[in-house]
């Protein structure tokens, strides 16, 4: 077998792929923000809610963490039109990823909220902190510091998860790689370039998040 790698045909597509990578980051960011809202509500329900709301959240979490994300988006995109709900592929992927993230985030967030120890609150009370001061100076810094690393980890995982959007025809990084592969038939070149872009993009995101976490929240984060 003689297959010579020819990156020459693929290089011109680099800007297209890079723009696709931005769309991947965008989908991940939107889904992450939506998931954070669901996650906060879920974590609040798990910590402070009654038995009924806890059970609802647990059922939701079990259902969405034990089915593949791909199947969930398939359901939204191909099954919901039967019920008269038409979603564009972008929206279907976005909603699917949001719902999926909303299942993983409550447990992460709950662990972060509950990591504030009783002693800290008692110490703050003894020092004469008001309730608002306790939240501002004790609870929030602690929660941010503990919560930021796993949340940024989840964001990176979601960025990788957006590659599934390609299956539904969304023109993000993997989707564009499929298209360029169909045009040039330079499969290895296209996909290794795509892989390199994913490594670069997620590494840049990790670096930015680690820097932010260290500077803003004094979180213990490292790059490698």
């Amino acid at each position, binding site marked *: 077998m003689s297959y010579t790698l020819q990156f020459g045909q693929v290089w011109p597509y680099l800007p297209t792929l890079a723009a696709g990578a931005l769309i991947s980051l965008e989908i991940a960011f939107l889904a992450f923000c939506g998931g954070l809202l669901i996650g906060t509500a879920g974590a609040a329900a798990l910590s402070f809610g009654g038995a009924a709301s806890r059970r609802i959240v647990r059922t939701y979490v079990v259902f969405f963490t034990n089915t593949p994300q791909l199947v969930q988006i398939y359901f939204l995109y191909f099954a919901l039109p039967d019920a008269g709900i038409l979603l564009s592929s972008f929206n279907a992927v976005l909603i699917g990823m949001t719902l999926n993230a909303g299942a993983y985030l409550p447990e992460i967030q709950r662990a972060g909220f509950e990591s504030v120890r009783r002693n800290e609150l008692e110490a703050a009370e003894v020092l004469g902190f008001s309730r608002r001061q306790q939240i501002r100076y004790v609870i929030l810094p602690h929660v941010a510091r503990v919560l930021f690393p796993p949340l940024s980890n989840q964001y*990176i995982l979601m960025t990788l998860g*957006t*590659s599934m959007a390609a299956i539904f025809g969304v023109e993000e990084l*993997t989707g564009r790689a499929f298209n360029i592969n169909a045009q040039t038939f330079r499969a290895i070149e296209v996909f290794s370039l795509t*892989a390199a872009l994913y*490594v670069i993009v997620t590494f840049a995101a990790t670096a930015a998040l680690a820097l932010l976490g260290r500077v803003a929240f004094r979180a213990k984060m490292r790059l490698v």
Partner: protein
Amino acid sequence: MWQRFAAELPEFFGYYNLIFLAKAALTTIALSAIGALTGSVVGFAAAVVRMTRAPLLAPLRWLTVLLTEIFRRIPFLVTLMLVFFVFQLSGFDLSMFTVALVAVFLIASSYLAEIIRAGFDSVHRNQWDAAAARLPRRAFSE
């Protein structure tokens, strides 16, 4: 919609469909089980390599770090495509199952390498010191 749904349901859950889905589920289980087993063996080895301190092994350590970092940052779909086309063009005639298994194995071993390394990292310094203090005596007495 529901009437059509109800009408099509018996056909959907027909004998051949169920057998087909059950076989597919078995493939999923086989892929994940074999991938997790081989991945944890290689991931464990990678974690051990990363814990070594010998200067001679430095290139091996860098290679391990590089590979785990790379494969943790490529989406599964892209890894799968790369594995598929690399095998196709290198002339190995492999089944699709093997191709998928190699992709699962690559991803599993890099993720597990990090998980196992985190496990090793969680062993407190004192415990390593205590083990180091005890080990020579035990080694000599046996």
